[in-house]
């Protein structure tokens, strides 16, 4: 199969994730969308790696996974504590830091 198709899929996934971040309010959904974008990137990296015939893209995909895992740990902790204090997971409610 033509590896370019993987790139199309990656672009599609990324767009879905980006649109999700922009239009959804629920913090968990937002989080999932960010994960979706990250994994879209991973998919693109791996596809490029395959296309160019070297391992660079695959290594970067591992790095991205590590970063994503760390981000999930911190992000979920924030969401949980936010939910405990505000009883809501809506990101619009957490807009108190504005001037």
């Amino acid at each position, binding site marked *: 199969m033509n590896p370019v198709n993987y790139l199309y899929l990656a672009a599609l996934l990324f767009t879905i994730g980006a649109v999700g971040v922009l239009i959804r309010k629920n913090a968990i959904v937002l989080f999932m969308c960010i994960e979706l974008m990250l994994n879209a990137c991973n998919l693109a990296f791996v596809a490029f790696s395959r296309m160019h015939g070297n391992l660079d893209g695959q290594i970067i995909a591992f790095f991205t996974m590590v970063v994503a895992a760390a981000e999930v740990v911190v992000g979920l902790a924030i969401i949980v504590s936010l939910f405990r204090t505000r009883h809501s997971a809506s990101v619009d409610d957490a*807009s108190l830091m504005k001037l």
Partner: protein
Amino acid sequence: MENLIALLIAAPLLGAVVLLCGGRRLDRTGHWIGTLLAAVSFGIGVALFADMLGRSADDRTLTQNLYTWIPVEGFQADMAFQLDQLSMTFVLLISGVGTLIHVYSIGYMEHDERRRRFFGYLNLFVAAMLLLVLADNFLLLYFGWEGVGLASYLLIGFWQHKPSAATAAKKAFLVNRVGDMGLSIAIMLMFTTFGTFAFGPVFGAVGEASEGMLTAIGLMLLLAACGKSAQVPLQSWLGDAMEGPTPVSALIHAATMVTAGVYLIVRSGAVFNAAPDAQLVVVVVGAVTLLFGAIVGCAKDDIKKALAGSTMSQIGYMILAAGLGPIGYVFAIMHLVTHGFFKAGLFLGAGSVMHGMNDEVDMRKYGALRKYMPVTFVTFGLGYLAIIGFPGLSGFFSKDMIIEAAFAKGGTEGWILGGVTLLGAGITAFYMTRVMLLTFFGEKRWQPDAQGHEPHPHESPKSMTIPMVILAFGSVFAGAFFEIGERFLTWLEPVTGYEHGNPPVSAMTVTAATMVMLLAGVGIAWGMYGRRPVPVLAPRGSFLTRAARRDLYQDDFNHVVLVRGGEHLTRSLVYVDHSLVDGVVNGTAASVGGLSGRLRKLQNGYARSYAVSMFGGTAILIAATLLMRAV
């Protein structure tokens, strides 16, 4: 011998340091230390004088270079002294009369708890004045000049608990600053023109400078002299300076301070000789001040202020003589020395009178004091005869010489100047006779003060009368001593130069005219104050009297022209500052503020709007990168 020159200054300076830093443990001995060190300075002066007399006239200048004060490439100022006949004359006058005033102050300030400090300031005054006359360059002279200004400020305001004294000190200081500015500008001009400000090189190179530049330097030096010597237009501080203790007035008027201006002009004679326009201004200033001071002196009822007017007038004589050029320099200095004797004597006499009269200064409340204070009466009387120019006394010779020199100026100018000096002599006789009659003659007019204490006039202690007696001797004999064999002329001529003027009228005629003016002045004064009783409250008086009582409106003039003018200037500057400068600054701040207020709206706290801007920014960056690559 030249190594002794620095000691002349060092002795009183040491006194000032010891007395001002020594603290209360010196309260009991401080006045003796101060007097002793002033006397040491006088002793060294006499030794140097004796040594100088032993050498020939061309070989009398001594110099001493202590160290290089400011060693900069192309700008060198030395801490160096020059003692020639002119400086010597001043040294003897300053330290001699200064020492007598120190002795007098021991008695006069006996009951003042800050007497030690007073003597410290007196020593500082003498040291600064000696530095001024001994400096061998203008920058060092300026140092002494400023020192004199500082010491006069401290002494005039010595009784600083009185607001009037504090104000008078401030006034003297500020008015003097105007003159000091003239001196500093003159030094700068000299440096740009000649590349140096040492006396020798500057006076030697006068021929190379343009007349315009010399006139500018001369006028700036004159401005400086006007400030220190209380000449019109910077005369207003002198009358108020009477707020200081009386010995200070004596010191300022006889030995230090006001003589500095005359010294400066005579010392810079080479510059003035080459700048006739500047000389003319000097003469005009002298003539105007001469009449100004004399008129003011006629109307004052405060004995010290009457004497202050007289000083202004006599210094006017000296400045006028100094402005005449080589025909007048010697006589300016001669009058300065004789004036030093009789004016110091007069002030000390006035102080003695005040001492016996519970510090009353209004002459209308004196009267008949000759019975109560015989020594003061006689010494003051001799000073009086000397200042009006009674034949044979010192003022007679020195003033006569100046009047002759004024006539010898030649042309219409000579007649005008001669007339002014003659008129001045007449007015001097009038106001001094008035002081004399009001104080020592007539009926007693003093009354009990508000607390019911009637003053008990008494003779002052020995420490006060002895200096007065010595000064009276000087007032009587100094003129004749100088004049016999033209001693003073021969002495000073190698430094200042001399050319004999030819007055259009004979010397005898001038003397006769002076005598007529003198008799007229004395006669009118006797008619007004001697023949009939003097009212205790001053009558309203004519317009001229009222104007003279207010110092011919000098303060009003200064207030209207300078104070108001300054206020208007600062107000307009404040307006410009508020509207223009602040406008620019505030405008910038306001526009930055407005812009940031708009930018703030972007920070709305909604995560998704930040996400949009992030996506937008990334998209723009990627688009730009692609675009750049395509190009």
